């Protein structure tokens, strides 16, 4: 008769020291995905809401907002947020493909990591061209 006895699994090491583990390209995409997500949560959303609120308040407020955002420092902030959003979006789309088992082999996963960086930076350049 089979016994129901089960030994508990041996405790396995969990090693997540980000400054010491080796980071191949896909893991860099992964950590940047997290960092950009945090940036968007803490800075992106409040800036977005503030901007939309000001832009809708009155035509004077709309013009004042445009003047404020025309400052070079503000343009840099907007560009940074645009990059964070675009990287997060591209890395997220890559994630959806991985979810349905497309590109999960090592070589395609590396290639799609490169694509995420290249495409998000290219789109950021378009935003930069629009800003300046």
């Amino acid at each position, binding site marked *: 008769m089979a016994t129901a006895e089960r030994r508990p699994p041996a405790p396995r090491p969990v090693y997540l020291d980000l400054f010491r583990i080796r980071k191949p390209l896909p893991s860099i995409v992964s950590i940047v995905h*997290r960092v950009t*997500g*945090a940036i968007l*949560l803490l800075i992106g959303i409040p800036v977005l*809401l503030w901007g939309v609120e000001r832009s*809708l*308040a009155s035509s004077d407020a*709309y*013009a004042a907002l445009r003047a404020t955002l025309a400052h070079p420092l503000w343009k840099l902030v907007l560009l940074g947020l645009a990059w964070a959003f675009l990287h997060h979006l591209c890395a997220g789309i890559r994630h*959806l493909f991985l979810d349905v088992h497309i590109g999960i082999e090592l070589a395609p996963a590396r290639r799609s990591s490169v694509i995420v960086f290249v495409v998000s930076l290219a789109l950021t350049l378009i935003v930069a061209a629009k800003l300046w």
Partner: protein
Amino acid sequence: MVMRRQTVGAHYGLTDWLAQRVTAIVMTLYVLVLLAVALWNGGLDYSFWRALFGNGAFKVATFLFMAALIYHAWLGAREIYMDYVKPVGPRLTLQVVTIALLIAYLGWTIQILWGHTGAAA
């Protein structure tokens, strides 16, 4: 004999995983539609922007976008805390602060969309 073994937990993992994807797709669609509207109009100016946010359907779509964003941000933030903040006290504090912040964002959104000084006025 087939045994269905209930392991452990509240089984929210799969729901959360799916919700993260669904909210991401909802947000992407909203952004694409907004981009298409702006391009179709040949750019944005105050009167067009104002009229857009005066439209009831667009307000509801914008609210849904923000609700999806808030939920998505919560799932992502919680994942980060679970991986990097192990002690219960700091983790719980961060979670509570994050939830408060996200609900405040949603309240701000409602104020913009349906408040006196916002798009409805």
